[in-house]
């Protein structure tokens, strides 16, 4: 065995990055591409069940308590308003909200995070939670949302239609493919122009974010020329962003299911789902730009 010397150790340490730099693996790229063959099923799946009558009737118990809601990042503004409404009308009730990419919320619940309610932005993430035995009862659809392109108001990339997403040199930000909006965005790109168009769009991708609000933030700051978010996020983006419509034929309709989480407070969860599906919940959702399921 060669004797280790201080000099040789220093040399080895200094050489580490170069060794790594020269290390070339297979030709498959782990991410950063848009594969039109692979993304078609992730948002689909069976439709959420119709609402059982009993679910609509549940009320918040007079004893109150703490309701913990894990919700998709796109629900941030609507659910925050609901929290204030509910806490105002039920003084003994505390609502705790946790927002993030649907896929991250499901992972957290699977790893033992305590929650009463899970609301995701697509069916496949909800089905993953169902398959791992983390839900009580059937998920119910409560809202729908469509996609839009957002650009900074100065529109540095001069984006006027989805065709411009393929313009060479454009700085495009999408959510990563495992995030619901990331999957929908890729489907919209594929539906618009097929694989050849999708390849050009993928070449413009500069960042893959963990949830839709991070996509919006990068566009609001003006760091990115364009991003694809939900219609409701574009609304929440205020006057810092402008919308560029995605043609109806290519646009995707995101379905939002909600379910009670196993190990949570069933009474509170049922009451929240009833509120969400009832006129008050619908009203809040509608004002934030969500469509009926």
């Amino acid at each position, binding site marked *: 065995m060669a004797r*280790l010397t*201080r*000099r040789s*150790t*220093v040399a*080895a*340490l*200094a050489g*580490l*990055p170069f060794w*790594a*730099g020269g*290390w*070339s*693996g*297979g030709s*498959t*790229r*782990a*991410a*950063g591409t848009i594969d039109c063959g692979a993304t078609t099923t992730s948002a689909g799946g069976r439709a959420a069940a119709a609402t059982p009558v009993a679910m609509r009737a549940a009320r918040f118990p007079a004893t109150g308590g703490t309701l913990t809601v894990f919700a998709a990042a796109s629900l941030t503004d609507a659910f925050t308003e609901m929290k204030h409404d509910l806490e105002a009308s039920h003084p003994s009730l505390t609502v705790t909200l946790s927002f*993030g*990419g649907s*896929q*991250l919320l*499901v*992972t957290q619940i*699977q790893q033992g995070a305590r929650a009463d309610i899970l609301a995701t932005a697509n069916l496949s993430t909800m089905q*993953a939670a169902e398959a791992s035995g983390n839900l009580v009862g059937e998920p119910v659809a409560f809202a729908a949302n469509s996609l839009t392109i957002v650009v900074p108001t100065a529109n*540095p990339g001069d984006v006027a239609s989805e065709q411009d997403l393929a313009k060479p040199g454009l*700085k495009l*930000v999408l959510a*990563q*493919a*495992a*995030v619901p909006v990331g999957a929908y965005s890729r489907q919209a790109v594929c539906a618009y122009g097929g694989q050849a168009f999708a390849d050009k769009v993928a070449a413009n*991708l*500069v*960042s*893959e*974010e*963990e949830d839709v609000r991070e996509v919006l933030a*990068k566009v609001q*700051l*003006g*760091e*990115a020329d364009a991003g694809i978010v939900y219609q409701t996020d574009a609304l929440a983006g205020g006057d810092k962003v402008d919308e560029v419509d995605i043609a109806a034929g290519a646009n995707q309709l995101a379905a939002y299911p909600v379910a009670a989480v196993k190990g949570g407070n069933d009474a509170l969860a049922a009451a929240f789902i009833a509120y969400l599906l009832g006129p008050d919940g619908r009203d809040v959702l509608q004002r934030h730009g969500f469509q009926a399921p």
Partner: protein
Amino acid sequence: MSTIVTTRHAERTVRPAPAAVEPVPRDGTARLAALRLGVAGRLGGAVAVLAALALALFLVLPLVAMAGRAVVERGEWDAATWETLRQALRLSLVTTAVSLLLTLVAGTPLAWAIGRRTFRGASAADALVDLPIVLPPAVAGIALLMAFGRYGLLGQYLNLFGVTIGFTTAAVVLAQVFVSAPFYVRAATAAFARIHREVEEAAADLGAPPTTVLRTITLPMALPGLLAGATLAWARALGEFGATIMFAGNFPGVTQTMPLAIYGAFGAGNLATALLLSTILLLVSGLVLVAVRWIAQHDW
């Protein structure tokens, strides 16, 4: 003791031997008090040992659990896992090497200037350099965006020349230098401040030119401190997450370093990949720390 030293060197002066311990008086009450103190002391000692063991276990257990689970989940690794690892590890090693190089080149003279109090306001600079250490990474991310973002203080002028830093590997390096350089500068400042000025002056009096003094006296004497600081800075850069994801974005092979790839894989429900990357990062960091320690302890 009549050695004349400056206050900075005070800790090096030989202190008078401590006064001999007073013998315990040989009457009963005092002996009892001493005994009780002994019991309390022994109890306290036992509690301290238990607490120390508990903390040591607490620090090691999660890492063992992680590495063990990584092995359990190895069946889930596929081509995409290895590709993610290859791109992220390569990017992490290259960017942290560049960050460290920049930190050493610029941080060493800065630390020397501060440590030797060569300019007015050096002590203020000393305190300022520490600031990024206590800042949460998210604050670093926002601050970097406001300075170097496309519409940032400096970034807007760079943008005029078609230079954008966001979403590039350069942004990753900037984020790493911002959060890690203070660790090096702090350690190096202390190392330079500790060196006896007389040794350097003696060498100069014997005719050594300043560069020789620097090369043969100052740098070798400061070396252990510089090495410790460089190790800390490198480790901090390797773990950098918050400022990177906010300022540089997240793209495989360009800005997705190991911590970002781990977070992304975990968020995507790909626990096996997250585990593998975490364990590899643990091994690489451990190897580097051991190697540096070995370099520091052994003489040429």
